């Protein structure tokens, strides 16, 4: 285990673009809206082949959320595209009232999430979006880990009726999940069976968790490794089963440690399978400029940090 058939490394946003283009071919109700970031969101192919279902909104994200909500009335399934910061923080009230409370079938697709946006710095590196979106009643929140998973998730959310927040990122990353996977919303992927410590990871941190698990296994620590791609609804059963077995849980995310995956896993663990926990994520801090790799290292989001956390739990 922990060996994968790798596809060429690619960015998760390209997985979104490929999935959206696929939907253009298979689902005539899918429309796409973009706030002046067609290239960044990889929406070019959809725009080229389905121009009548593509809507340029300009730099006006609040309006984009409202237009998307309205377009569902008449049976369409709008996918909005912009950076994660402008998909959430900038338009929280529009999402809350016109989409979530109104129960509209809008897919909010957000790229450049987290520190791996890199050199543009903290103004664009949102680390609170998972928390904000998860707090909205009936919102589904998904954070896939590589190109293949993002493409599969993009295709899957079109068949789910209700608002969805789909979060992905900018840099090319290892592409290790199966090409032909079926994406099941709310169902964790149990990557590796182990007994000593549970590692639960989402998004770009899943590959870091794989590398950490390899190192820990080599040192004789048995790792139960779980990929939670759907943060809401959370696969509580998978978490409880693993935490009951190991009693030691580490969560890993490119997000604040408050309000995100860590907080939500902790709620489940505290209630159903009390365990000692470690949280890999950003701790009450904004990001800054730098390369994605430098930033992940500086803020402690690398495999080496996960290994250290596991060892701390093993010493307890």
């Amino acid at each position, binding site marked *: 285990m922990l060996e994968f058939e790798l596809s060429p490394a690619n960015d998760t946003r390209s997985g979104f673009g490929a999935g959206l283009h696929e939907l253009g071919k298979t689902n005539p109700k899918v429309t796409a809206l973009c706030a002046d970031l067609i290239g960044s969101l990889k929406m070019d192919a959809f725009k080229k082949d389905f121009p*009548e279902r593509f809507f340029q909104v*300009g730099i006006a994200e609040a309006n984009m959320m*409202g237009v998307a909500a309205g*377009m569902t009335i008449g049976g369409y399934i709008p996918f909005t595209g912009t950076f994660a910061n402008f998909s959430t923080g900038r338009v929280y009230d529009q999402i809350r009232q016109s989409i979530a*409370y*109104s*129960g509209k079938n809008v897919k909010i697709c957000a790229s450049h999430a987290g520190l791996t946006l890199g050199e543009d710095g903290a103004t664009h590196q949102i680390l609170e979006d998972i928390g904000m979106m998860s707090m909205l009643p009936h919102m589904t929140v998904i954070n896939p880990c590589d190109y293949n998973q993002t493409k599969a998730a993009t295709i899957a959310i079109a068949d789910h009726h209700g608002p969805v927040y789909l979060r992905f990122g900018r840099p090319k990353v290892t592409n290790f999940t199966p090409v032909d996977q079926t994406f099941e919303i709310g169902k964790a992927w149990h990557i590796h069976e182990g007994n000593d410590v549970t590692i639960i990871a989402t998004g770009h941190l899943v590959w870091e968790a794989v590398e950490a698990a390899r190192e820990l296994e080599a040192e004789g620590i048995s790792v139960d490794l779980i990929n939670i791609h759907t943060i809401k609804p959370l696969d509580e059963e998978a978490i409880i089963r693993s935490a009951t077995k190991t009693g030691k849980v580490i969560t890993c995310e490119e997000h604040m440690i408050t309000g995100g995956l860590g907080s939500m896993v902790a709620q489940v663990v505290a209630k159903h399978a009390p365990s000692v926990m470690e949280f890999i994520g950003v701790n009450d801090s904004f990001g800054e400029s730098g390369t994605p790799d430098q930033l992940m290292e500086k803020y402690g989001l690398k495999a080496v940090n996960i290994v250290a956390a596991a060892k701390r739990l093993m010493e307890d």
Partner: protein
Amino acid sequence: MISNEELSRIASQVRRDIVRMVHAVNSGHPGGSLGCTDFFVSLYFKHMQVNPDNWQMDGVNEDLFFLSNGHISPVFYSTLAHRGFFPVAELATFRKLNTRLQGHPTTHDNLPGIRVASGSLGQGLSVAAGAAQAKKLNGDKRLVFTLHGDGELQEGQIWEAAMYCAHHKIDNLIATVDVNGQQIDGPTEVVMSLGNLRAKFEAFGWVVNECDGNDMNSLNACIETAKGQTGNGKPVLILMKTAMGKGVDFMEGTHKWHGVAPNDEQLASALAQLEETLGDY
């Protein structure tokens, strides 16, 4: 074809409903509701083709209406009830626990006639623009109508949407602004001047009409004109002058009744000025 006299009789009952609903729960927004009553009645009983007997969220092949300034929910609810979307008796549940008639309109409780939640201002024009584009994609020739408060135009999103509608040639949409010149903290010109609204919307690429929103003749003629202007590549606007609190002398023309309920004595005085034409709920 319904006469102006019949429309005015319906409007009188809707105004009675508004003051009674707000009085019953000692909360709600009578001022803007009374000012826009003639507009709602004209739209729903004369101009819009709707299907209250077979309510469908998607509203394909019917005209759609979006209330962007959701706080004037009393006039919206009373009009929908009298038009047959839900029982008139349900108006008695307004703002009470477990009601479908929430303080501000919502789709959350599946009240027929409501297609989006509103209350937080400035969002309705964007929603209407999306719904109008869905109609175009569906080859549906019916129209989309909206209502906005003039104070609401202080929200930036309105102008994002105004730009979007013109750019995308959304010409199956008629937006109306209730120009009553009042907002919570006082006259709009004191709180935050709106300037020349006709010139502003024309500069944004809209066709602009003006009318007296408390005169059925003026209102009906204007809506007819606006409908005739659709389909020509431009979004259409109506600047509708109204008196806040219209129909109840002590509420008329002041911002003080924006969000205040009448007491028992004031209710009696108001009802004495409004003929009961269709029977109180």
